[in-house]
């Protein structure tokens, strides 16, 4: 999974689509607590945060969707005492076997990215499944065999593909755009990569720049010539 921070508009559609699909998916339900009350909360696999990077006027709002990074070096799996957390050998997807989890929270402590949330109702840890129940479903059209968050993103900020294949769309995007992983110093080696925002010149804020000769002539012609 590759997320383009230049394009993400922070609309939370990915989180909502994820919730909608997965609350009836393999680790269903994604319990809500007090859903119609004053402080609604609940289990989400995908959360979007918003940051300001840089100082005005050279600043930018960054919308930052985060879900499971499906790390190469997934410590959440290493520390799990029950064997409920596992990483699939064939595609590297990290999952929690709901029938084995004892709800000790240890894996959530081991995850730097906040990708694991305990469901208080089932007493088990739940997390992004990369929509494993969609991406291998041979009964739906091939273009729909993607995670719900990717399919729903109105800005096309999310790309799903094989980062092990150097010529895949996602691998090329990471190469061309300088894609990076979060907190590399912890050595979890996250699979998900983020594409940084493209650099644009800052918009001048010291009033309108003085009109030049070309613009003065254009404006004069516009006033003289009747259409």
């Amino acid at each position, binding site marked *: 999974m590759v997320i383009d921070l230049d394009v993400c508009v922070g609309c939370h559609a990915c989180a909502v689509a994820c919730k909608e699909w997965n609350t009836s998916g393999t680790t269903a339900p994604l319990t809500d607590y007090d859903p119609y009350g004053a402080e609604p909360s609940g289990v989400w696999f995908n959360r979007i945060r918003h940051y300001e990077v840089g100082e005005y006027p050279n600043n930018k709002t*960054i919308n930052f969707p985060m879900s499971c990074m499906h790390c190469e070096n997934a*410590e959440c799996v290493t520390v799990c005492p029950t064997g409920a957390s596992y990483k699939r050998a064939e595609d590297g997807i990290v999952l929690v076997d709901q029938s084995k989890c004892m709800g000790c929270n240890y894996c959530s402590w081991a995850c*730097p990215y906040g990708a694991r949330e305990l469901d208080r109702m089932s007493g088990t840890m739940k997390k992004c499944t990369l929509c494993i129940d969609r991406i291998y479903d041979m009964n739906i059209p091939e273009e729909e065999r993607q995670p719900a968050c990717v399919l729903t993103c109105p800005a096309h900020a999310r790309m799903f593909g094989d980062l092990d294949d150097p010529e895949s769309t996602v691998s090329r995007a990471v190469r061309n755009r300088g894609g990076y992983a979060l907190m590399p110093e912890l050595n979890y080696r996250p699979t998900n990569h983020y594409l940084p925002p493209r650099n644009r010149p800052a918009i001048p804020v010291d009033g309108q720049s003085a009109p030049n000769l070309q613009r003065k002539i254009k404006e004069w012609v516009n006033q003289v010539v009747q259409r």
Partner: protein
Amino acid sequence: MHASLSTIFLTLLSGGGFGLMSLIVLANWLRLGGGLTVVETLVAGIIALALVSAGLISSTLHLANPKNAWRAFTRWRTSWLAREGVFAVAFYPFALLYLAATWIWNTPDNLLAHLAGAGALFFSVITVFSQGMIYAVLRTIRQWNTPLVPTNFLFLGAALGATTLAAVRLTTGGAAGTLVTVAVMLLFMAAVIKTIYYFWIAQPGGPTINTATGFTRATVRILDPGHTAGTFLTEEFGNTVPAQTAMLLKVTVYVLGFIVPAWFLYLALNGGPVFLGPAAALSAFVGIFVERWLFWAEAQHVVNLYHGRQQC
């Protein structure tokens, strides 16, 4: 980190219990204070087993889905939490056999007790070490990811055990000089190692909000965490302790955990009332309870960087 009572009592009570069992075996082997009498061995041994059992039962209260707790013994090849469970259970037959052999032969000095005692000592130490390693392996929490954590667990457990054993000896009225000396020395060493730890974690370090988001060439601050109420992440990891509160609690740790126990043991040894022995042990447990609460409450998980913290 959210400090849950179940995990605090697990590490506090079972740590003290394993420490006490280790000290019982060592005291009988090395004839500390002339060795323990059969009654002292049995009483202290039952206290140790009660502490360990209370701690382990408490740990299951931490589980949201305890019906799968038995599976926690299966992943001992990779998980320190599983190892801790396996070692803690392996401790029981040796400890029970040690007490039974002492009772049957009316002395802790028999072959079965020596063999069982060696096993009980080994599994006591390695279980407490594993408990420390549960936290020390987490690279997500700077305050825990240090060899000082298992070191602290071992020394604090030993200090609690030694203080309890000295209290037992003071209560039975035997010559308590050696056991009190051992207890005070272990209390002192535990206090020194805890002090090193407190200095060690004093300065922020590790990942920053910049490396967490990837924007390493500019300031980053949070505008909106993206949720309107608390989440699992804010409830589990969002806890902070005000600096003044932490300082006050650390003073409490030193006073109740180390100074008062040593002082009470000294007074009881020098003709003070008998109850000061048990009071010393109780004070030590209360002080280390506060230490353990701080251990959790002061721990800053890196996920807090995503909620606006600049560095943990």
